[in-house]
């Protein structure tokens, strides 16, 4: 048994093979056993593409470590391939010298031809660089279950647990955690419970039998901060962060949403918690979803709408209304590959321009971005805090990669979050509501007061037409319009005084500064860290506040000769930074429907650092 720091495992099969499930079970077992984890589900947009084809391949990658793990990893050490298509789709990304566990039963002439293989790759030069473990997973599964009363189809569905059993053996994982899970899941279907347990154990035994010829590994417990942990993926984290914010603000949470990949899970999650005062409204379309949220915001809720790129396009006009009416509203955009329908299940960072500029008129609003699955919790909370304090719509950008990816998360303790102040009017004795003015701004934040229906004497009308300064009455005067436009912009700019200063990893000045934002943090952090260990002079700024930017950002930029902005688009942040700070930033851009690889960042950064060495 070899002790290693971390292991990257990729489960891959047909989209109906249950790879997401066994990947998740492996991850949670590893986390409970004390490893740090990071996962990356990667699946096609078709629910069931033709079986056995490359288009139908669904994958789940997990990185487990005895050190903190920040990404699901570049190149898997182990591939589980349930059929030839899964092998073909993933082979090029597997680490040379890595292990491939194959379901050899699937490598028949039909399976091979569906995957486009003219000859069986097993035993050929193509697989010479890998340790191949041929496991007759299908036949073994059926053999073990020959006494079972389950139908043939149901028996075959158990074969993912055979593969899981093999991997559990290789990594010395405890089977009980999964067996307990099966017990709960199939508590009323004993036949399914016992079938899956038998198959899981059989896979484990298969590994034991081959012990001499199979690699086994030990990934020790990670030194994580002590405390109680749970799994969290980015979409659940957004849901919980919003609920935490609602609790801290003492407001009910209202979500208006329309189903869209990859954001729907936030709606699913929030729709479970009616008992905690959450109201979810599945609207008839994206526009209705945001408009209903605007109505709830006017009524005094912490109002939220969640979507992905195409939905954000549809919400543009209503976003303008929300910022004109200066109501608190959180908009979560889980970015995916665009434009148009694009790549619905793949991740990208290409909605920044839309978030920043996608409205008619001079229409600035607040933009935040979360950097990891668990950071989605804190940034959703932050989005709500800023929306409520500054009476502004706030867009939170996440992406498909961190939305679906999961991590082990230390549960924050009760009381870790301070109450969130709001601009809700709290009538004092002696107040005369007749003096109420709906656009009388706070002198510091410039935000307006929030009077909601039901408050006696504060009846007022707001709308999309231009307002008279202070009173909020309709006003067509040109000078007033210009002033109101400037006030709306200044209000957003002043938020920079209410957000943290930008942190920097590495020296505060030097030759090269790498800038990244949002969901790429794990990869950019690891790349810069690795290079710094190699002696390369490079620092990292990872942005989570995109409008307004942190107050010290310009100062940081002045300390560096060269700024390299790494992002999964064609340079949207780079252009904004150059426009705003004239900092001559250059871009490193990859837009290939996948997260950054640490290795490609290392190569690119090295190249730029080299010019200045």
């Amino acid at each position, binding site marked *: 048994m070899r002790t290693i720091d971390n292991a990257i495992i990729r489960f891959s099969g047909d989209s109906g093979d249950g790879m997401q499930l066994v990947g998740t079970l492996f991850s*949670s077992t590893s986390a*409970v056993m004390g490893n740090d984890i990071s996962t990356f589900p990667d699946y096609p947009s078709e629910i069931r593409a033709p079986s056995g084809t490359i288009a139908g391949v669904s994958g789940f990658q997990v990185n487990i470590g005895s050190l903190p793990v920040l990404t699901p990893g570049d190149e898997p050490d182990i591939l589980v391939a349930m059929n030839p298509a899964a092998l073909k789709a993933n082979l090029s990304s597997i680490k040379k010298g890595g292990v491939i566990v194959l379901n050899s039963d699937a490598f028949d002439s039909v399976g091979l031809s569906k995957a486009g293989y003219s000859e069986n790759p097993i035993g050929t030069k193509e697989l010479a660089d890998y340790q191949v473990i041929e496991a007759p997973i299908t036949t073994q599964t059926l053999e073990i279950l020959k006494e079972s009363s389950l139908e043939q189809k149901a028996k075959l569905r158990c074969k993912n647990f055979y593969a899981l059993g093999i991997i559990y053996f290789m990594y010395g994982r405890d089977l009980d955690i999964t067996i307990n899970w099966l017990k709960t899941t199939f508590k009323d279907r004993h036949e399914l419970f016992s079938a899956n347990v038998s198959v899981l154990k059989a896979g484990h035994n298969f590994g034991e039998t081959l012990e001499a010829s199979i690699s086994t590994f030990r990934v020790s417990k990670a030194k*994580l*901060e*002590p*405390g*109680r*942990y*749970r*799994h969290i993926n980015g979409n659940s984290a957004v849901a*919980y962060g919003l*609920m935490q914010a609602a*609790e801290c603000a003492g407001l009910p949470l*209202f979500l*208006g949403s329309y189903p869209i990949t990859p954001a729907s899970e936030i709606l699913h999650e929030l729709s479970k*918690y*009616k*008992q*905690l005062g959450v*109201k979810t*409204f599945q*609207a*008839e*379309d994206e*526009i*209705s979803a945001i*408009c*209903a*949220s*605007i*109505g*709830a*915001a*006017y*009524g*005094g*809720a912490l*109002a939220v709408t969640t979507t992905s790129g195409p939905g954000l396009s549809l919400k543009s006009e*209503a976003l303008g*209304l929300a910022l004109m*009416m200066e109501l608190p509203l959180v908009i979560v955009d889980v970015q995916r590959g665009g434009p148009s329908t694009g790549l619905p299940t793949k991740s990208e960072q290409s909605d920044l321009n839309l978030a920043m500029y996608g409205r008619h008129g001079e229409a600035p609003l607040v933009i935040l971005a979360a950097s990891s699955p668990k950071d989605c919790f804190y940034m959703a909370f932050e989005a709500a805090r800023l929306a409520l304090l500054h009476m502004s719509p706030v867009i939170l950008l996440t992406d498909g990669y961190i939305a679906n990816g999961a991590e082990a998360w*230390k*549960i*924050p*303790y*009760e009381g870790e979050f301070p109450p969130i102040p709001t601009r809700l009017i709290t009538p004092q004795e002696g107040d005369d509501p007749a003096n109420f003015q709906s656009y009388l701004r706070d002198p510091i934040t410039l935000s307006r007061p929030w009077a909601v*229906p*039901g*408050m*006696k*004497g*504060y*009846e*007022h*009308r*707001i*709308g*999309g037409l231009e307002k008279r300064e202070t009173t909020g*009455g*309709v006003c067509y005067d040109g000078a007033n319009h210009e002033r109101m436009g400037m006030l709306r912009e200044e209000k957003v700019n002043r938020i920079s005084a209410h957000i943290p200063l930008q942190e920097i990893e590495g020296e505060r000045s030097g030759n090269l500064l790498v800038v990244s934002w949002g969901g790429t943090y794990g990869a950019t952090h690891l790349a810069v860290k690795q290079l710094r260990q190699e002696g390369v002079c490079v620092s990292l700024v990872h942005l989570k506040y995109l409008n307004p930017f942190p107050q010290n950002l310009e100062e940081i930029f002045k300390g560096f000769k060269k700024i390299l902005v790494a992002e999964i688009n064609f340079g949207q942040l780079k252009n904004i930074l150059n426009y705003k700070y004239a900092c001559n930033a250059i871009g490193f851009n990859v837009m290939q429907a996948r997260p950054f690889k640490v290795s490609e960042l290392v190569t690119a950064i090295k190249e730029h650092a080299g010019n200045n060495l």
Partner: protein
Amino acid sequence: MSEQQNYTRKDFASDQEVKWCPGCGDYSILASIQSVCAKLGHKKEDVCFISGIGCSSRLPYYMNTYGMHTIHGRAIAVASGLKIHNPKLSVWVATGDGDAMSIGGNHFIHAIRRNIGLKIVIFNNEIYGLTKGQYSPTSRQGLVTKSSPYGTIERPFSAAALAIGSGATFFARTIDSDPKHMQDILLRAHQHRGMAIVEVLQNCVIFNDGAHSIFTDKTLRDETTMRIEHGKAMIFGTKQNKGIRLTAGSDPNPEVVTLGEDGISSKDLLVHDERKQSTFLANLLTTFNQPTHPLPLGVFRAIERETYEECLEAQTQLIASHRKERSMQDLLLSGETWMID
């Protein structure tokens, strides 16, 4: 809600100068709405008017209540969110034929389907007024407008048929020239459990003047319209001697008959029943129009059905009764968690 208030119409008039064209039917609708608001039994601070875009949609500015003037077609969506968030409010939507049935058509039908307790007043002038005169989804075929110089080739929606087809629990039609009738209908809408849709035939004096004149003209209106009332026979006419009878046979059709002719008495006539679960009668009424039939005015349909917000509240109570979590901390500590020492 039931607290008695002594409001008058003036309590609901805002300080804003009303800026509709002189002679516009909207003035009469505004006055009726303000009068009815004084009789709702709701506190003023619990009343909200939400609108989209169009001439009709300026109405919230003229109401001294909470209100929002939103964007084109979206008033019903905004109002839905507000009502779901706070079901105690009396939420009204002022909309037009274009706002409700063209750009906002999707929200209109889905809000009806849900039976959310909104009161929707459609100002139907069969024209786009605020954009200065293009045909609308209720314009009659052949209408010459700026965007249909040779007459529109499109067929109009019937607001009644659209609403009833979408599952409306309350639909009524009234007319701007009869404030008394309009106020009765608006009050009925308020009293209805769930969504109520009131179509007001409204005259645009500039771009579609006289669109409803055959229904408002004093010498014609008794012959061209028919007041429908629950439990009463369908009778109309200057002499109140005409009625609607369903023809016998396998293909029954509503025909106009004269009382006293061929032995026809009021017993032969259709009797209006707004409370029928079946939409047969309500649908039949939506087909009545000139020149073949009198245009029905009154409540087409008013049935009892649970509202969206009632169902939501009931479900919430049920879940709260058997779920343990009472705070975020409870939630985060529930399910699979583990300790790291």
